[in-house]
């Protein structure tokens, strides 16, 4: 009998203590308070308060060096000055002279138009005296046929990777470093291709700059392998120069370019949204002044970051969004030829809601900064046509009218 009782109790308990309460609702009869309503509203950026600022990332700080031959109607050239090569090597506590066997230059192709074949890199020997103030015009005379030391073909099958050229024998004369240069080798790089194009080379800012390698035989008595050495040198300084310097237009919103520009947009959301709304979608809508240009197959990314404190050009921005900043900032690819740009930024806009002292502002930047052929310029709130002004399209729910009771 006791066993039956235990079995009886067990059957009741095991018959399901797990709750399952979901049932279909016949609204509005069975929906206290009704159903959530989604509202759409567009907010233009606060007129006259949006601005572009430039100078954040300089060309010599960029993660890539831009080389082009008319991709945007003008040319860009890379300049690389390698670390000084010593004229002796320490071996067994003694400085030893050496004889150069060969020299190699390797470059990281970060991105190129993979649809275009027949791309060459033209390497010019230039004086190692350039710096961040040097301009395209200053170095025009360095890029003459007499300075051309090699034409490095970029394999058509290469999407990204290293290209390398080696000098040996008589060709070593072309890469000989004069005593007046104090061991510094400098190169200028152009591009040649059937049609205008561009290429992004790795740079010291990205940790993948060009490498200048010298293979030497040390001047030591023995004949062991210790005599053979390679001296690999990275860039001491690298930059690129543009034939047409960027001129910021204060009436528009520029993003990217070199030195890189960022745009600050401010919005004024009404209290009914800041205090009570649940935003389910927020789209930043921007209209480019001209269709987006750039290197095909290498689009740039537009990123919006929330402003932590609005102090203008130097406003600090948050590195992430969402609770605790754990989510990446809103980012989207800028498609070549696009005539409008929509950036989903709901997690960013959420930061403006509720009891917060955060300004309702965001900063637009381009990635990679100062290292992209894409240089979008958007209409600002100063545009005559309201339809092209920067705007935020919000989809939101107001507080649900919970029935009481």
């Amino acid at each position, binding site marked *: 009998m006791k066993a039956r009782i235990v079995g009886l109790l067990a059957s009741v308990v095991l018959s399901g203590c797990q*709750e*399952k309460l979901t*049932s279909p609702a016949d609204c509005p009869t069975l929906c206290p308070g009704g159903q959530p309503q989604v509202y759409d509203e567009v907010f233009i950026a606060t007129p006259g308060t949006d601005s572009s600022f430039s100078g954040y990332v300089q060309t010599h700080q960029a993660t890539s060096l831009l080389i082009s031959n008319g991709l945007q109607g003008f040319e860009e050239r890379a300049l690389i000055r390698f670390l000084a090569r010593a004229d002796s090597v320490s071996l067994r506590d003694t400085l030893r002279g050496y004889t150069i066997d060969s020299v190699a230059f390797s470059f990281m192709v970060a991105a190129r138009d993979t649809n275009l074949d027949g791309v060459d890199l033209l390497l010019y020997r230039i004086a190692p005296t350039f710096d961040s103030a040097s301009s395209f015009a200053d170095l025009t005379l360095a890029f003459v046929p007499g300075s051309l030391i090699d034409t490095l073909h970029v394999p058509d099958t290469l999407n990204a990777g290293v290209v390398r050229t080696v000098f040996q024998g008589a060709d070593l004369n072309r890469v000989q470093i004069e005593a007046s240069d104090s061991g510094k080798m400098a190169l200028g790089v152009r591009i040649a291709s059937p049609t205008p194009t561009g290429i992004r080379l790795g740079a010291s800012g990205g940790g993948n700059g060009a490498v200048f390698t010298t293979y030497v035989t040390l001047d030591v008595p023995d004949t062991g392998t210790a005599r053979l050495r390679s001296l690999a040198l990275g860039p001491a300084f690298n930059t690129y120069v543009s034939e047409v310097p960027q001129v910021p237009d204060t009436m528009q919103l520029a993003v990217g370019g070199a030195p890189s520009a960022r745009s600050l947009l401010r919005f004024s959301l009404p209290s009914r949204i800041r205090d009570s709304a*649940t935003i389910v979608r927020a789209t930043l809508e921007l209209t480019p002044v001209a269709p987006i240009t750039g290197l095909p197959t290498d689009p740039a990314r537009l990123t919006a970051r929330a402003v932590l404190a609005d102090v203008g050009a130097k406003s600090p921005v948050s590195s992430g969004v969402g609770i605790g900043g754990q989510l990446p900032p809103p980012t989207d690819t800028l498609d070549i030829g696009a005539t409008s740009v929509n950036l989903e930024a709901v997690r960013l806009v959420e930061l403006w809601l509720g009891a917060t002292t955060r300004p309702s502002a965001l900063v637009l930047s381009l990635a990679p900064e100062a290292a992209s052929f894409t240089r979008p310029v958007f209409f600002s709130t100063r545009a005559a046509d309201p339809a092209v002004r920067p705007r935020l399209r919000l989809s939101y729910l107001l507080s649900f009218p919970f029935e*009481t009771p």
Partner: protein
Amino acid sequence: MSRAFVIALLGLLPQLLAAQSSQFGVRGLGFPGRALAVRAQGTGGGFGLFDPESSQNPAALAYIAALTSGFTITQGFRSVENPAGSASVRSTRFPQLVVAGPIRTFPAVVGFSFSNYTSRDFTLATSQTINPRGTPVNVSDTFSSRGGLNDFRIAGSYRLGTEWAFGAGFHIISGSNRLTSTRVFADPSFLSSRQRSELSFTGVGISVGVTRQFGSTFALSAMARSDGHLNVDRDSTRTGTVDLPYSFGFGLRWRPIAKLDLAGQTLVRTWSGANSDLLAMGGTGARNTVEISAGMEYASDPRRPYRLPLRLGAHYATLPFTLVPGQQGHEFGVSAGSGLRFAQQRAGVDLAVEYVGRSEGVYSENGFLISLGISVRP
């Protein structure tokens, strides 16, 4: 043996059935509880006004002979139907707890109980297509509530001779509804939204009751109760009050033979007093209710009536909170149960299985409620 088999079969029944939950607790204060112990549930509630482990009549406490504690768990398996579709739901409740005992030098019993006053546990799901930004997007909405009202009663009963018993109780009615509205978009460009609100309730009431025994075979019982009004706070802000009902009950009990005990009762509650308050708060109102119950307990061994008696009963009740203005839902249930005392009657278990059907217009549900009661007399 055969009775035990039937009871075991009833216990296994819910595993074979599709399960469901109540849509009649969506409106108003929720689905009303019955404040019945499992023994009374097994008789359809017919013995409610006479059952000391139930909380309907404070005078019934007089029938407790020793310190007693009782605990009830109810598992519900229901299928719900409405114009939007059907579903099977399951729910678990702990609707009744009682502790009571006699005062040694006085012909009185005191005790307290914790009963389910209303239950407002549900999750409603809908789906539809909306057009935000001019583009069709499928959305799924759920509206859920967890909570309800609890009735904490402190009561005493005084026995006057062997015929009369009088009782009175003080009730504290409190509880909350944790409401959540969620919308999920099929388009991942939209974030899901979740909004919450909490309603909390407080109120007090009093009840009185009387039982009159006519010989050893017949008894009458009556009760009256006033629950005053309920203060309603929404997210800690007072939003208003809801008048709670007066309740009146009358029951009779007859034992024609030693093995058979019959009882029936009627309860009337004036829920219409809450109608205007609920309408003012955006609800659909409330109406008076009546509950009629009848049941029997058959003991094969009159000397040991606690040994697997057979309990049967039925009840009919109207429901207070309307889904559709102008209509009123109702419930019909038939039940069966049994019980067993052991360890020199210091412990016992009771089991009740009740089939319930509820409907209001096109809204209906039916299913089984399986209740297990555990009582201890230390």
